[in-house]
């Protein structure tokens, strides 16, 4: 039982990170109907920016950890947003009216380019960071197993909840959110009603990239090690999460992220760690067979 609880905590922390990335996928899919394959690598870039800015702050003498983390968060969100904006501008906007596979190919190309750019710019070796946030609570001890909740796990879950709340407010209450939802429903009609569609789509990418940057920072703090290749597998799992939850649905992305995180953690804990990805992907296939549009997605109505 204690072991189960411990894995539940670990799974939720991991799932929160997947959820944050999955939101970027699901928003972009919702608004322009493409798989932004480079999003996982935007997350990787965000993690690198967080690492470098953190080391930079330490080097210039900002050693008070909470202040440093807030500064790192701001820097990482800003700079990663710039990446998200640029990728959309360079690789996707020229192909907006093209057929569906075209932006997917540029997205894959962008993903390859980003990975290898980072490999060239920062080297292929893994980048370790000594633990920044230490400390843990012992919640309760069983017979021979103590359930602990580390501070970093609390930070991850709290950050995710706060960001989700902020994000939900933006989508639900602001004019930006309204234009975003309008574009999602019908881009042509939204444009006719005076919504600046290009700007809205750019902002979608910016917001997705900012959330990916947060996920990158949390990943860096949680695992303490990153490399140029983390974006691929984490990105695929986050996309799996988005599809699982019903692509285009924001609560679905979060739910899917949690489910994928939990499956992965429990599978590693109770079965074999080698096949944890197989478990996550098989789950995806199973869910899609029974719920072809995901758990919380709206079924697509095909009109002729």
């Amino acid at each position, binding site marked *: 039982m204690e072991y189960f609880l411990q894995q539940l905590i670990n799974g939720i922390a991991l799932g929160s990170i997947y959820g944050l990335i999955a939101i970027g996928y699901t928003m972009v899919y919702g608004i322009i109907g493409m*798989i932004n394959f480079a999003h996982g690598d935007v997350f990787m*870039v965000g993690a*690198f*920016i967080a*690492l*470098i*800015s953190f*080391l*930079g702050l330490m*080097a210039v003498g900002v050693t008070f950890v909470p202040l440093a983390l807030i500064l790192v968060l701001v*820097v990482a969100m*800003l*700079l990663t947003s*710039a990446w998200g*904006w*640029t990728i959309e501008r*360079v*690789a996707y906007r*020229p*192909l907006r009216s093209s*057929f*569906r*596979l*075209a932006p*997917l*190919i*540029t997205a*894959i*190309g962008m*993903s*390859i*380019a*980003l*990975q*290898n750019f*980072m490999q*060239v*710019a*920062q*080297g292929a070796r893994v980048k*370790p*960071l*000594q633990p920044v946030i230490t400390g843990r609570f012992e919640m309760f001890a069983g017979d021979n197993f103590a359930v602990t909740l580390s501070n970093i796990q609390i930070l991850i879950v709290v950050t995710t909840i706060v960001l989700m709340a902020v994000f939900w407010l933006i989508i639900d209450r602001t004019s930006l959110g309204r234009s975003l939802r309008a574009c999602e429903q019908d881009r042509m009609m939204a444009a006719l009603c005076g919504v600046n569609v290009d700007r809205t789509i750019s902002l979608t990418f910016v917001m997705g990239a900012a959330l990916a940057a947060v996920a990158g920072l949390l990943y860096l703090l949680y695992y303490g090690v990153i490399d140029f290749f983390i974006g691929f597998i984490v990105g*695929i799992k986050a996309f*799996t999460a988005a*599809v699982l939850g019903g*692509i285009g649905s924001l609560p679905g992305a979060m739910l899917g992220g949690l489910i994928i995180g939990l499956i992965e953690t429990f599978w590693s804990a109770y079965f074999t760690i*080698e*096949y944890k990805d*197989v478990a996550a*992907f*098989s789950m*995806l*296939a199973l869910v*899609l*067979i029974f719920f*072809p549009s995901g758990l919380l997605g709206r079924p*697509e109505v*095909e009109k*002729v």
Partner: protein
Amino acid sequence: MEPAVREKPRLLPALWDAAIAAGIAFLLFCLVLGVRTVDGVYGLTLQPRPVLLAVVVGIVFFGRLALNLFWWDRDWRFPPLPFFSRTAKDAKDRAPRDIYRVGLVLIGFAAVFPLLGLVLNKVFGANLPLLYLIDLSILVLTYVMLGWGLNIVVGLAGLLDLGYVAFYAVGAYTFAILATTFGWSFWMCLPLAGILAAFWGIVLGFPVLRLRGDYLAIVTLAFGEIIRIVIQNWTELTGGPNGISNIPEPSFFGLEFAFRGDNTFHQFFGLPYDAIYGSIWLYYIILVMALITNAVTLRLRRLPIGRAWEALREDEIACRSLGMNTTTTKLSAFATGALFGGFAGSFFAARQSFISPESFTFIESAIILSIVVLGGMGSQLGVAIAAVVMIGGFEALRHTDSLQLVFGTGFDPTLYRMLFFGLAMVAIMVWRPRGLVSTRQPTVTLNKDAGSISKDLVSEGSG
């Protein structure tokens, strides 16, 4: 009438625009390129690289300025390339026979190229790097075959498959395991590998039948990853990460290409030993296999099943309402594509004589898919050209010694290959969204004068 005086480009807005671009470039690169993380004694340390950052930002600034001043409001155009026409009119002018002729010429060249090189080298004493050229051609032809195989699934049936490499892996491992365990020959294993891969195609096909578009893409991607992970971890059967080595090469009607042995090719024909004979034989095997793929595809397009695939690509609902069985149509497309993937896989294993899970990562699927899409989906010639451009160009980056003169001797071009590859995928796609050969012969036309379909009409369905 006087020619219209061209308005002078306005310098100030151009400068402003370039400055904005440079500012964005600075934001992008200031940390990830301007600072390098280095392993230090106490963890990572930072090493600023202001010069590099300034150079990159400068390139962006002047590049954008030049584009503003000289490129975007230019009043001249490139003359249209003969076989890459853009407009429907060009496409109509070009008879379908032309593409056919180009194809024949290319096939003819491919058929004589190694023999020609051999004669030049052996008889006339030319010093071509023939072994290298043939090896490169084998690589390109493998991708041509894979591209044509995937083209059946993506180009004809309109099913987006991101896990094609799984079938390639199934074919490769089938041959490798059978050959190293039971000592079966390449020619015995080849059909088995194809059939097994096709079987896996059907296995994958069943759960995804109900899925559409991008859901299908992600499930096929997941399937490819599952196969790779299983191969990586099932050590008893596949050797795990160590892979399988000592896979035999295909024999030439029972003759081996080894240096010594009872029954070797060079002894039988009384020739001095040369590694080139084995390569030439492999070259012809893959050439014939690729051409068989092409011929089968072209024939299938004229059969009811091929017509059904293309109809499915254009409109699935219409197909259903006309009483077509979409289940068998989709499954047969998956199985046929997988069959050729399996063939190519076992050829790959035979040629490399060593395989490991490293060779079957997602990046392979992405490369094959990009060849199909860049080639203009559904165009056989386009796929071949795209394979030559992507794989050949990619290899050419190995030999960019001249770049070292520019960037100094510390510059290692091989590091930048994948970077250029990714950027080239983006650039080609933005430049020619419809692919390199953007027209395609219609399979069926109502009247004979209809000509070829223009790029505007070649749209892929929601499949």
